[in-house]
């Protein structure tokens, strides 16, 4: 159970400012996801919270205690790394037990704790193996096991799934969601650049860009009412289409944004924006048509009718009135 | 964090005490008529004056420069053989081990082996005689014209295997696709060597070259001491050998110190030369890419 309070946090390497005036409150037991493009500072923020990186200025409080002088291993923080960071020369058991051994727990207590964690993570048959003898998913589970035996107040994940292949990623995503359900009192912070992970796992998402927090909100809020163009473009897959110029002006905005499922092709080819189909992406359940309507990038339309238009044919793209997001010239949303 | 100094401390202290601080001491002593057992008189740069006006010193400098003539041989021979052994050679691993044997042997012992082989009444001359090539026999180690080339060949013999090993692992790091692509483009064996292999390992070549230059200044003592004793006269003597002789044998402490200072300073020039080669190379390839 831990509350986290961050105030005016800054971090710079020489002249390079990585984090600028971060203000963040995280409630106990929340699952928070930091998301943003690479280089936005999300991992650095996580490492500052963990105590692996000193902040340049500002305050990080865990449960009301200023962490400035608290070393990393005494913050009650556990972390799962992208590269798993398992000790290659130790068995699975020893990897999980390492922190407890250093705390001088008795052998029986360690064995009990490790076995319990192993059971939870279906690792019991592998306790004597070395990390090199495990699959990627199993290694990631060991890394999680190493974190949970410490019974942390704060559970940090640094892009834990990016080394896994697509199928395993979906599975591990589910397991992490289940883990959160099993540990309702543990506060978790999860860093990713994958917005699907962010959407599916988070209670609240923190979107970072260039060292600043762009917005904080529930996945639904960020998806349905993005505060600005950056968030609108970043959250949601495939990305939101942006249309500017006359077409937007005709609808009374500087820029309008419509997600692919807010667009459809006019069956009678009369209304909407006319353009040429440049490409059709057939994904089984969905078909996405890329239509060049004279904007910087082709707009992506999720087709509801099964028949895909031919590449090169002229179509008319029509936005649903309720799906339109409007943005002012400064990028802020207008509602 | 303070206790982490326990980790660095011993190594730092030992290196400073044994390797670095003595250099300052010897630099300081090179300004004295140094007598380690008694009192030393300050003489300014007199030791250096004597050193630079001593023809023996210049003969030794000449020897060192002559030995550097072996450089192309020491670099190209292992390079070519490492490339040759890259594929299509039976027992390449065993051969590399055989070449590598001298690397583990004491230079003193290598010197001893060659001394017994090359002495005037030694096996090489006897074998030449036996093959009816009596006119080819030489006093290899006691003729001033022959002794330096013999030393160069012996350095080749001793360092060859290490060079092959180093270039082999450098070649192994070059992606195979690169060679296969060149093959598909119609490059033959030596074209692949010149256009694919060499550019990919040029850093290793520069490093090995620098290593050999340094070795010529640093690691010659054992060989010279045993093989030739620096002779005939000073015809094969190196700096380290001559410093040792002057200090331990003859007791010319002051000039030995001055000569040490000269040696250390000239070695300090080698990396500077190496860096400028690498920098030039970068500039050159950079210009090509543009």
């Amino acid at each position: 159970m831990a509350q986290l309070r961050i105030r005016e946090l800054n971090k710079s390497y020489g002249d390079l400012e990585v984090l600028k005036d971060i203000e963040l409150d995280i409630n106990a037991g929340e699952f928070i996801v930091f998301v943003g493009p690479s280089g936005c500072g999300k991992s650095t923020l996580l490492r500052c919270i963990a105590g692996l990186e000193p902040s340049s200025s500002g305050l990080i409080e865990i449960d009301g205690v200023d962490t400035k002088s608290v070393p990393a291993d005494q913050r009650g923080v556990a972390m799962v790394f992208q590269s798993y960071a398992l000790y290659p020369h130790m068995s699975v058991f020893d990897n999980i037990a390492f922190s407890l051994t250093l705390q001088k727990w008795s052998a029986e207590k360690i064995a009990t704790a490790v076995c319990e964690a192993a059971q939870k993570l279906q690792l019991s048959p592998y306790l004597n193996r070395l990390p090199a003898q495990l699959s990627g998913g199993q290694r990631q589970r060991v890394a999680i096991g190493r974190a949970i035996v410490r019974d942390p107040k704060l559970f940090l994940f640094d892009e834990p799934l990016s080394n896994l292949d697509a199928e395993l990623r979906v599975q591990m995503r589910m397991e992490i969601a289940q883990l959160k359900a099993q540990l309702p009192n543990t506060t978790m912070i999860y860093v990713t650049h994958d917005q699907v992970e962010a959407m599916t796992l988070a209670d609240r998402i923190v979107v970072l860009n260039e060292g600043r927090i762009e917005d904080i909100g529930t996945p639904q809020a960020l998806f349905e009412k993005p505060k600005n163009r950056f968030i609108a473009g970043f959250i949601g897959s495939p990305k939101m289409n942006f249309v500017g110029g006359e077409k937007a002006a005709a609808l009374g905005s500087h820029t309008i944004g419509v997600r692919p499922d807010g667009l459809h092709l006019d069956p009678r080819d009369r209304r909407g924006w006319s353009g040429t189909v440049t490409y059709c992406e057939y994904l089984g359940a969905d078909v996405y048509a890329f239509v060049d309507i004279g904007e910087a990038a082709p707009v992506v339309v999720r087709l509801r009718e099964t028949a895909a238009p031919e590449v090169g044919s002229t179509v008319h793209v029509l936005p649903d009135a309720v799906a339109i997001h409007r943005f002012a010239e400064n990028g802020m949303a207008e509602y | 964090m303070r206790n982490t100094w326990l980790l660095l401390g011993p190594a730092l202290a030992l290196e400073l005490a044994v390797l670095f601080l003595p250099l300052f001491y010897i630099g300081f002593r090179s300004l004295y008529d140094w007598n380690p057992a008694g009192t030393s008189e300050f003489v300014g740069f007199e030791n250096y004056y004597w050193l630079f006006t001593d023809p023996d010193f210049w003969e030794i400098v000449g020897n060192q420069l002559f030995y550097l003539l072996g450089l192309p041989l020491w670099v190209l021979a292992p390079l070519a053989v490492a490339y040759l052994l890259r594929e299509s050679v039976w027992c390449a691993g065993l051969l590399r081990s055989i070449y590598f044997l001298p690397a583990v042997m004491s230079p003193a012992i290598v010197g001893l082996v060659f001394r017994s082989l090359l002495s005037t009444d030694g096996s090489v001359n006897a074998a030449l005689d036996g093959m009816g090539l009596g006119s080819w026999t030489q006093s290899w180690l006691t003729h001033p014209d022959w002794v330096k080339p013999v030393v160069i060949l012996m350095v080749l013999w001793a360092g060859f295997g290490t060079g092959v090993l180093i270039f082999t692992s450098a070649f192994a790091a070059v992606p195979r696709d690169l060679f296969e692509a060149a093959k598909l483009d119609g490059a033959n064996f030596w074209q692949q060597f010149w256009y694919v292999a060499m550019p990919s390992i040029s850093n290793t070549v520069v490093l090995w070259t620098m290593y050999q230059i340094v070795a010529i200044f640093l690691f010659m003592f054992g060989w010279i001491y045993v093989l030739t004793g620096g002779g005939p006269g000073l015809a094969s003597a190196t700096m380290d050998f001559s410093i040792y002789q002057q200090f331990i044998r003859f007791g010319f402490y002051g000039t030995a110190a001055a000569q040490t200072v000269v040696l250390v300073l000239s070695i300090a020039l080698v990396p500077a030369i190496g860096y400028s080669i690498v920098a030039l190379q970068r500039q050159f390839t950079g210009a090509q890419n543009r």
Partner: protein
Amino acid sequence: MSDQPPISIARTLIAFLIAVLFVLPFLFLIATALRTPADFALNPGGLPVAFTTANLQEAWVAANLGRALLVTLAVAVIACIVCVAVALAAAFWFRVNDSRFARHVRTLMISGYAIPAIAWLIPVFVIVARGGLAGNVVVAGVLNGVSSVPFAIYFFHTYFLQVLSKDLLDAATLDGAGPLTCFRRIAVPLARPAIASVVALVFVWSFGDLLIAATILQSNPDNYTLPLAATTLATKESVNLQGQAAAALVALVPVLFVFALAQKSLASGFGALSEK
């Protein structure tokens, strides 16, 4: 796996001819050491016909090679312990501390490799002799060890960069392992292959050293190392070629043994030069 290209006879032949140049001196050495002086005098370049171990026995006694072997082993073992112990810890420190200052110190300590042994050895000898420690085996061992510390730091540091990722170090920190614990429990066990390489190299180097031995131990014939004893014997006018060859042979055998035992470690040690 792509299939191996066919064996080239020409290239194999060239390679084997080169190998002959490396084997032949040893065969000559063994033959010379083991033949009778009379047989050698009769036909010095030909094949030996009359064998004897008398040369070996003579050399063994004359140069006190038995004791020299023990002294050399002691020097080499001390050198290995000193070098690995201090260099491993220092390399770990440099892996963990990557500040600009630490980098400068690292460069300095690695560049110690290029200081000629003769340059530091003479002043060190003067001090050692003043302290009454000339001829001391432990001093010779320590000096041999320290002379390899720059290389060992470079080697271990390169190795640590490979096996100790930043994530791994961070994980250890979060698990509560301070720098010393992390060194002892994680870095040292992981560095085992690198330690084997450095031990093999330092052993070979200090076993073969002549310069340090000839400076520090010269005054005490009881503490001559094999290279020093063998070369001292060989430079005596009275000793014939067979005796020299026999002494060289005795000095070679232990090293060949190490070579056979630790060839892989040695090779990866020398290979370190190509990595940068």
